[in-house]
């Protein structure tokens, strides 16, 4: 078979031969497997959230009770207290604890990214403009080592 005949034969071949189908099927199975692992494996759940202002921990509370907290900056100091609707807070982030999760439910920062991060039961929520970090972790008592 010369070169032209060989090219002609390849052109006449079906798009899929059995070998191709097997490779596609294997690839598809792998994708499905990784998607399932990523989305269906149980996520770790914290039992406590910690609030850091400028890298320093200023507050912590358990996640076992639903509650509303407010973080605000006053005279360059970060303060966290129970949310009180009647107070006119400035430079604030409202922190909502609900069903063992934490979310920022309101803020007067310019970008509101922290609000869009949603509710978390583990990990971090960061508000860059207020230099605020909320860390959700677990296992109760913690030490240096």
């Amino acid at each position, binding site marked *: 078979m010369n070169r032209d005949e060989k090219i002609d034969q390849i052109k006449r071949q079906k*798009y899929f031969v059995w070998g*191709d189908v097997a*490779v*596609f099927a*294997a*690839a598809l199975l*792998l994708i499905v497997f990784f998607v399932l692992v990523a989305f269906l494996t149980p996520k770790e759940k914290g*039992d*406590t959230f910690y609030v850091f202002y400028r890298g*320093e*921990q200023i507050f*912590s*509370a*358990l996640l076992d009770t639903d509650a509303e907290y407010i973080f605000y900056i006053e005279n360059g100091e970060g303060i966290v207290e129970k949310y009180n609707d009647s107070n006119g807070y400035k430079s604030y982030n409202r922190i909502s604890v609900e069903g063992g999760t934490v979310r920022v439910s309101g803020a007067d920062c310019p970008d509101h990214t922290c609000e869009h991060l949603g509710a978390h039961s583990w990990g971090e929520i960061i508000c860059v403009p207020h230099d605020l970090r909320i860390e959700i972790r677990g*296992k*109760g*008592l*913690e*030490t*240096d*080592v």
Partner: protein
Amino acid sequence: MIVKFFGRALCFLLSAAILCFCACSADETEYYFVEFSISSNFYAGGQKLDNNEIRSVSAEVGKMLNSIEDDVSTEKSGSVARINAADAGEKIQTGEYTSDLFSLSKELYRQTNGAFSPALYNLSELWGFSPEYADRYTQPRQEPPQNEIDACLEKSQFDDIYRAESGEIVKKNAETRIDFGGIAKGYMSDCVLALLRQRYGEVQGTFSVMSNSVLAGEKQNDSAGLGYTATLENPRKEITGGLSSGGALYFTGLSDVAVSTSADDYRYYVYDGKIYKHILDPATGRPSDNGVISITVLVPLSVAHAGALADAYSTTGFCMPLTQALSFYELLWKEYGIGAVVITSDFCYYTVGEYTVLQPKEYAQLTNPSLTDKVENVFTYTEISAAKDEVVPCEKEREYIELLAARNG
């Protein structure tokens, strides 16, 4: 055509992924047992190390630990392996690390009247605790016959290994084999501290080589004012309820100290209602049986070889009657400021030295009061004067042993 294009793209990606996986696996031909971790809040000269610096120094430490492991592990082909394979009278030139460990071990062997000995590899093998049994440590099994234990004891005498005047290590009995498992990781933590000090000068922060931790300097940014804090791991966490069941007791106010814990919940098996520990008594050739289930030792960094001593002393107390072990630690406290916490199978604990040791509820009250009702105090503080050599396991201990027995068949 589009389908075919995407099909080929997928095949390409899969092949690349497989090739990448193979390349990564090929790199990991050498297995190292020792793990190292360093706090992300690590300071040198008052300046916090950034993430890049932490990564860089961790890599350097990792290389050093691997080279120590190469030299001192029974499973590698370094000095210790050569000593173990040597004939009687053969002079073995050792690496620096093995030489250090040998000298330290000789000193500890003398100081503890033989309660600390690294010459127990044969016994460790006999009882099924040497590395080749790693996949079946917990498998229930009968005790070896007494005549085999006696025969093994004869070839487990540290006095049968000595340093020649020319510096080499020599064995009197070809069959004697050593294993620095009771001191090597603490020694490694000393080497890490020396490396960090050489690189930065004085350092402040914590790091750990397996269960051997070093808390260097004073804690920086100590907003709680508690100094460094440390958890004494709960050897009975599996029957402990509440939050933080992993912590038996808590240390506060620590600085410049090496901390090491040995406990019976690592390398053990249960047979006929009894826990057989991996810590072997050099006097009897049998697993330690003095009623102790955990020992934590704290050695000030001002004491030379603090990490190695903490590691070795934390096993030594398993190989003496309880009252003798407590007296030994009291002596260490008076002479060197070394502290210890000893937990026994009647769920009592004894403290030696003026370190602050808190129950979980006390520590919770101090650090996170909302957790006070959610944590459980497991062990009861007991005065040293009330200690007795015969320790009767309490009800909860028997429950724990039954749990282990049921789990391991």
